[in-house]
């Protein structure tokens, strides 16, 4: 009897010892053991022993309080840190989890911010706006504004201080060195007055530069000035050749001060106050309008006023039928920079990364909950013994905060690294990303999200602990266990959400991989090795006649084919395999037949080619013939159609010999002379081959073409000779996008390849996080069910049965996760399909594979704890309680 009482007292001492600050613990324990021993010898195991022992607990609490008061909040932090370091596995897992989430989120959102949201860094940039037309009725997004609209809008001086407009036109810059294609912008008067751009050198355009009689002038971007002219100040006042015409450089716009952001050269429209005929019709929507608002006018107000004005204009009588329903809108310049065509990639990335952050937070919460629950006994005891509730909460919250901060620091480091090392290589258009920096407010938001998640996870058990009464806590048993069904359900909920979100990411990854595979595996329909490509634009000023254009391309092809290593050369308006060129889509019908209703025409890609096109690609006609030198401007208009179009337009009889017409534009009947197999043109694989109509270049006289040169072996060593030939024909023309067709094809795939890597890594990361969540939950459950397993095995359950019951537990989670995840994945893949050209969404096979992968992974994650469950010695298991 007495022995039992003293041993009970000793157990209380041991159980309370953790409460004593570590450096005093040994003395405290030895002292109390001695005192209890002494007392029981003196008095025997009298009834007062319990009270006496309670003194030890109060002593421990007093020491702890003293410690807490002494060390203040910093000491609290250090104590929390020490506590965390004592559980290195838990700590590392939680920190890494949060780091992945915070790093990914702040990195990607910084990218989005730089590309989309950053305000234009111009004086009074918040007053700068762009005006767009759009036609929601017809489903047209933002497009340019007509000159009459611009004039009407500009009259609203109550809204605008100044307005101007511009139009981007690629030009060839030549002169002192190799010609190159530059992003040139033609600007109306007051352009730089609106922007108030800072100039590195020289001046903006003044009204005299816009005079009809003025000699051509140009303003360069600082980036171009640095790269092409080595920052030579002597460029100012000198002449550069733009499309072969000398332009005097009057200024260099400081970096970041130009508009549009990607512009390299600005040249003035030289209208001298006389609006040219082509700009007069209200239906000619050609100009990008910018304006500087009056100081007191808000963007929203200007938007409302201009919308109303445009509504009045387009309700008027002198409006073309096709322009009915046109709406005007005013948006801030930074919103305009983001554009209607904000890369869909960014949106999808943002969603994906948001999911990763969410999963990371859920996972961290799960980890914290498990830890807190396994300590609930300790926490309840602390509270019951008089540790202020706020103190207990402080311990939990302190740990949560520390974890979130450590995760945040690591995550921000990862994001910084990724932004500096990785992002510059991304296939994203838009502003210059070389100077990209981590957006601190974005990182702060991500950190806050994870802090909140950790705090919530920390607060749940803190609140429970503060409510728990001492009796209840002690009733729970000495193992510190006691998982009620409520906490388990909550935790399981977390894990199910994690699993379902990772399924969604896995499915997206699967879809992008599929898209990429289909693209890489696609049969281009011809031998695509040893082909060199580049594009050329003939400026209208120097090639005003169709004959001149035709002569240039004929001569070029002839000259190129004279090179010994060139097997064949040709020009085409659009290159296969998404390699570039100038895409054009038209609607066709048979000539002489009633015009089909709108929407029922045959849509096809319109491609202008030289006679040598098909032989250069090495393909033979299915039916009829290829073009020949006889098909020229004076001869009968002809066309060649792709097999898929032929089959659609004329399923029963041969199409060869029948006349087809491009009904909305050219409107010339063209006799079909041949049918060729479908070639792969589209960048991204389509469900069906792209219908194509080929026409002879000389019958269309397009000024911008791509060259396609087949060489003996690799063309790369011969580039200089090819350049020399092209320069001998016209030294002012740039050879843009010079590369092999294979390189071009690869560049074209960069976008989807990037997405594949992105979703693949996000999916893998999410899956890893979710699996660690599953593992943690199952392992925790197993530890809670030790006694149950012991009993079951004692009653004769086999190890396999016990293992299966654990794995089944994980499987249930996985299946519920798959159920919920399928719904999310469905929505996400719909968005992905909508946002990304050519990825076929909703592929059941991908769903099945992703779900199977998830279930298998969960089974594996449950296997470890399941084996642990069967290693329980029944006797030992029963003894723990």
């Amino acid at each position, binding site marked *: 009897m007495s022995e039992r009482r003293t041993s009970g007292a000793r157990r209380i001492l041991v159980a309370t010892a953790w409460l004593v600050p570590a450096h005093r613990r040994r*003395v405290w324990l*030895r*002292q*109390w*053991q*001695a*005192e209890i*021993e*002494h*007392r029981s*010898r*003196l008095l025997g195991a009298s009834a007062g022993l319990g*009270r*006496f*022992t*309670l*003194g*030890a*607990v*109060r*002593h421990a609490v*007093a*020491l702890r309080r003293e410690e807490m008061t002494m060390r203040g909040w910093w000491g609290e932090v250090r104590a929390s840190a020490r506590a965390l370091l004592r559980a290195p596995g838990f700590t590392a897992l939680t920190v890494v989890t949060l780091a992945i989430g915070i790093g990914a989120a702040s990195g990607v959102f910084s990218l989005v911010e730089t590309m989309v949201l950053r305000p234009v860094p111009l004086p009074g940039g918040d007053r700068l706006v762009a005006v767009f037309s759009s036609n929601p009725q017809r489903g047209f997004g933002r497009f340019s504004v007509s000159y009459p609209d611009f004039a009407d809008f500009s009259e609203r001086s109550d809204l605008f201080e100044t307005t101007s407009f511009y139009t981007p036109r690629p030009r060839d810059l030549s002169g002192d060195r190799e010609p190159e294609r530059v992003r040139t912008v033609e600007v109306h008067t007051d352009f730089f007055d609106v922007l108030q751009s800072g100039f590195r050198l020289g001046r903006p355009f003044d009204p005299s530069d816009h005079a009809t009689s003025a000699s051509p002038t140009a303003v360069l971007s600082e980036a171009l000035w640095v790269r092409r002219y080595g920052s030579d100040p002597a460029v100012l006042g000198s002449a550069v050749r733009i499309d072969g015409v000398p332009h005097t450089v009057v200024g260099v716009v400081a970096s970041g001060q130009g508009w549009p952001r990607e512009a390299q050269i600005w040249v003035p429209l030289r209208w001298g106050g006389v609006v040219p005929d082509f700009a007069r019709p209200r239906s000619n929507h050609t100009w990008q309008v910018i304006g500087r608002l009056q100081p007191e006018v808000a963007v929203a107000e200007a938007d409302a006023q201009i919308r109303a004005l445009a509504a009045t204009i387009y309700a008027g009588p002198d409006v073309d039928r096709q322009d009915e329903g046109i709406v005007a809108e005013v948006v801030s310049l930074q919103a305009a920079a983001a554009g209607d065509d904000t890369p869909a990639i960014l949106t999808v990335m943002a969603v994906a990364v948001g999911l990763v952050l969410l999963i990371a937070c859920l996972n961290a919460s799960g980890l914290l909950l498990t830890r807190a629950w396994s300590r609930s006994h300790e926490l309840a005891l602390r509270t019951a013994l008089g540790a202020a509730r706020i103190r207990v909460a402080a311990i939990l919250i302190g740990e949560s905060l520390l974890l979130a901060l450590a995760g945040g620091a690591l995550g921000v480091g990862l994001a910084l690294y990724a932004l500096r090392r990785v992002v510059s290589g991304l296939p994203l258009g838009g502003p210059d990303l070389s100077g990209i920096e981590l957006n601190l407010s974005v990182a702060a938001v991500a950190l806050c999200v994870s802090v909140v998640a950790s705090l919530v996870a920390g607060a749940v058990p803190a609140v429970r602990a503060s409510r728990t009464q001492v009796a209840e806590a002690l009733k729970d048993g000495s193992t510190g266990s006691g998982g009620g069904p409520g906490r388990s359900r909550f935790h399981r909920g977390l894990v199910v959400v994690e699993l379902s979100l990772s399924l969604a990411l896995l499915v997206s990854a699967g879809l992008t991989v599929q898209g990429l595979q289909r693209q890489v595996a696609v049969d281009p329909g011809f031998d695509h090795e040893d082909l060199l490509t580049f594009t050329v634009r003939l400026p209208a000023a120097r090639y005003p006649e169709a004959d001149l254009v035709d002569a240039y391309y004929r001569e070029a092809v002839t000259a190129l084919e004279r090179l010994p290593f060139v097997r064949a050369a040709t020009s085409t308006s659009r290159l296969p395999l998404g390699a570039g060129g100038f895409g054009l889509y038209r609607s066709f019908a048979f000539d002489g037949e009633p015009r089909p209703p709108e929407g029922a025409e045959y849509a096809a890609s319109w491609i202008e080619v030289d006679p040598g096109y098909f032989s250069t690609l090495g393909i033979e006609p299915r039916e009829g013939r290829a073009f020949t030198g006889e098909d020229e401007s004076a001869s009968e208009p002809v066309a060649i159609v792709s097999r898929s179009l032929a089959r659609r337009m004329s399923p029963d009889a041969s199409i060869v010999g029948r006349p087809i017409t491009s009904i909305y534009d050219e409107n010339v009947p063209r006799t079909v002379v041949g049918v060729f197999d479908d070639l792969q043109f589209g960048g991204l694989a389509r469900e069906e081959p792209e219908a194509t109509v080929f026409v002879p270049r000389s019958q269309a006289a397009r000024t911008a073409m791509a060259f396609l040169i087949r060489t003996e072996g690799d063309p790369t060593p011969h580039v200089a000779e090819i350049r020399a030939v092209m320069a001998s024909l016209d030294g002012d023309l740039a050879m843009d996008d010079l590369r092999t067709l294979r390189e071009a094809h690869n560049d074209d795939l960069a976008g989807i390849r990037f997405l594949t890597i992105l979703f693949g890594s996000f999916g893998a990361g999410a899956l890893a996080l979710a699996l660690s969540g599953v593992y943690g939950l199952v392992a925790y459950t197993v530890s809670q069910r030790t006694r149950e397993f012991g009993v079951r095995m004692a009653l004769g359950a086999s190890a396999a049965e016990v293992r299966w019951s654990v794995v089944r537990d994980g499987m249930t989670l996985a299946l519920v996760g798959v159920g919920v995840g399928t719904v999310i994945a469905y929505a996400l893949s719909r968005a992905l399909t909508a946002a990304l050209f050519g990825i076929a969404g909703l592929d059941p096979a991908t769903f099945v594979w992703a779900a199977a992968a998830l279930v298998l992974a969960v089974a594996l994650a449950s296997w470890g704890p399941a084996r642990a469950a069967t290693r329980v010695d029944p006797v030992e298991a029963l003894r723990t309680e």
Partner: protein
Amino acid sequence: MGRKGLPVGTAMVLHALARGHRHGFDLMEQTGLTSGTVYPALDRLESLGLARSRWEDAKVAQEQKRPPRRYFEITAEGKRELIAALEKYRALAPVSIDGVRHPPTEDPT
């Protein structure tokens, strides 16, 4: 704490130490205070430098087949503090409550 004077419980423990009681358990007996008061008070006294502690000779304890106990002694500083505390309590004039004088007689110590 020294400046504000010792709490009564702590002063009582110090007083008992001065009277030669050295172990927590004895001090409880002497002062009638609970273990939850006496032991923290001893620690406090030690940290204030009013008492010091030593562990009992291990050999003695071993002979008696029990763990060595921790015992406490009053320091010179502790004596001064105790005198100050006693002066303070003595300064309280005797008071008559419900017709009974408190304390009933002068304390002989």
